[in-house]
């Protein structure tokens, strides 16, 4: 037998058998927090401000902690790969060594992250490296345009027309050769219909989030 859904149903059963009081308490805390933040943002009473700021501070600390947790997780995984001699373990070793070096440099050298050594590390290694990796997306875009921006694909006429129109208007060489009316038409398309569609998508997303929240509060406990 290939597989069963035993483990999945076990997981669902675990949540299904959880005491509904736990869900209710969790929802109550969420509801109280939401009410507090809402009251603070609406300015109903200044009394909520200290409590709201305290909650915001907690959120900030929790976020910083999750960042540290992520760093610890990455280290744990790569140390395990080094220990087991997994494929490409030298790269894991390089990652760990780089982490330790930068950490020690940041903690030990006066000036911390603004010390010349770390600024050099950022300017000479991190910044060019990140920029280079991001620049590779240019190759991806061109290759994808070659393969997928074709008239024969479903909806290809519209996609291709939009892409070519935008590129022609954005490229100075072609823009200067194009009639002003054509450029104005492209501008109108972007500022009118495209904007309307974009804003519709934004509003739709916001409404979806709103109703997902309402559903979360009102859905019966499973």
């Amino acid at each position, binding site marked *: *037998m290939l*597989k069963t859904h035993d483990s*999945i149903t076990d997981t669902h059963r675990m949540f299904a058998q959880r005491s509904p009081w736990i869900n209710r308490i969790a929802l109550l805390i969420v509801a109280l927090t939401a009410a507090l933040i809402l009251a603070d943002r609406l300015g109903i009473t200044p009394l909520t*401000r200290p409590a709201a700021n305290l909650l915001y501070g907690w959120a*900030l600390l929790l976020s910083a902690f999750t*960042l540290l947790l992520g760093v610890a997780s990455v280290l744990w995984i790569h140390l395990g790969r080094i220990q087991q001699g997994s494929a490409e373990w030298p790269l894991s070793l390089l990652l760990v060594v780089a982490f330790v070096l930068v950490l020690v440099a940041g903690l030990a050298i006066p000036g911390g*992250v603004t010390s010349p050594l770390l600024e050099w590390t950022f300017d000479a290694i991190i910044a060019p490296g990140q920029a280079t990796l991001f620049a590779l997306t240019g190759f991806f875009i061109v290759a994808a*345009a070659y393969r997928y921006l074709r008239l024969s694909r479903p909806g290809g006429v519209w996609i291709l027309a939009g892409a070519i129109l935008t590129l022609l208007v954005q490229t100075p060489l072609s823009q200067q050769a194009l009639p002003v009316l054509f450029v104005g038409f492209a501008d109108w398309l972007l500022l009118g219909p495209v904007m309307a569609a974009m804003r519709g998508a934004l509003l739709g997303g916001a409404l979806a989030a709103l109703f997902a929240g309402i559903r979360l509060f009102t859905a019966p406990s499973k």
Partner: protein
Amino acid sequence: MSSTFGCPHCGKANPLDATFCASCGTYLKGLETGSLSHPPTPLSPDEEAGHSKAKAEQTAENLARSQPWLRSDFEKADPPAQATPAALDEQPWLRPEEEVQESQTPPKPRPQRLVAGLQGLIEPTDVEHSLFQPDTSGAADSSVADLPYEMRRELRQIFAADVPILDEPTSHTPTSTQPGGHGRGLWRHNWVYGLLLAGILLALWAGNAPANSRPHSWPGVIDAYNAIDSLPADSIVLVNWAYDPTTAGEMDQASLPLMEHLLEKNVRLVVVSQLPGGPATARRLLALARSSASQAALSRQLGESLVEGGYLPGGVGSLALLGQAPSQAIPVDIQGRSVGSRVVLETMEKSAPALLLILAARSEEVQRWLEQIQPIYAAPVVVVSSAAVDPVIRPYVDSGQISGLVSGYAGGIAYRDILADAVPTARQESQRRHITGQNWALAVLLLVIVVGNLAGFVERRET
């Protein structure tokens, strides 16, 4: 024997002990019967090796039966005809159309996903099921479900797997449902790579030539200039540095003229970033702006008027705190010095900053600040964005929530043009050459699209 097996959802090879698929996040534990109900007993090294081998063989055999598309000979045969009954029960999308429509069996539980609602409080969103399973409830049919089998399978691969953009020409055979098929005709890697190389060389060549063309300017730049130019000295500007070296190549070009302008106006800057790489990027550009701005206009040292708030974690929550209690959100600066008692922050708590400046490569950063910070301070907002973000945030310009918008190279060079009367710099010509080269690359992209369509046309003729 391989120590990996393919994900039943997307086909990605995963280690045997993987809990989730590294590609699509499908829950992989429990693929073998009894893996949870019978806990493993300690084995000797030899037994363990034999067990691992047997397990891998069994997994490979099961997966070859349930996921026929992973087999090397899958493309040669009709996939639904090759699938076994067990595999068809497990993966109904392999069934022929007629059989699927006739089948009225209730859907089986789907594999649990990594992102599947808030711990069971929300029902998991089963995109695959809703897209690729015909609606048997009598409601309107999904348009995707009506697509031919080959196209649906291709869509599944696009959604769930790394799309091989430049795969081997012989790995796919053009079909009637894939008219833009690749692998024949003009489809050669060398075409694409050659055109890319030509684009790079052309951009380099054009970048060394005097710039005689102007970028297409969009509204909002002059408004941004006016908003900054009208700032009185010593007014406070709260800056959200929402880009890092990844996008600095474009964002620096757009941001630099504004930072020079701000320094010349002798305003006080409070800079925060919600990206770990943001503060260092800000330091670098501020130093550059300091060196290139008109020295005569700089009446004081940068350090006196600058608060480097550094990295601000916490997402939306920390933004609200920044708006309501800046000294709590920024207790220390990037060098670890206490800044809670600095005059700038005390002033900002009593009276709103004169301007909010957002330097963002992603639209979400702009939206967050417009939702969380701007309503608290009610200050005008000027945005510097990448060109790709421009269409998303331009509605905020039209609605008046953003006072000025400078986007991409074009926006930066347009701002520089306005600033040039007051501050002539050598950087101006360099920036013009830069944008000219970049626009030549756009022209090459147009050429690539044309050649791609020509390739598709030739391939269809050959087929």
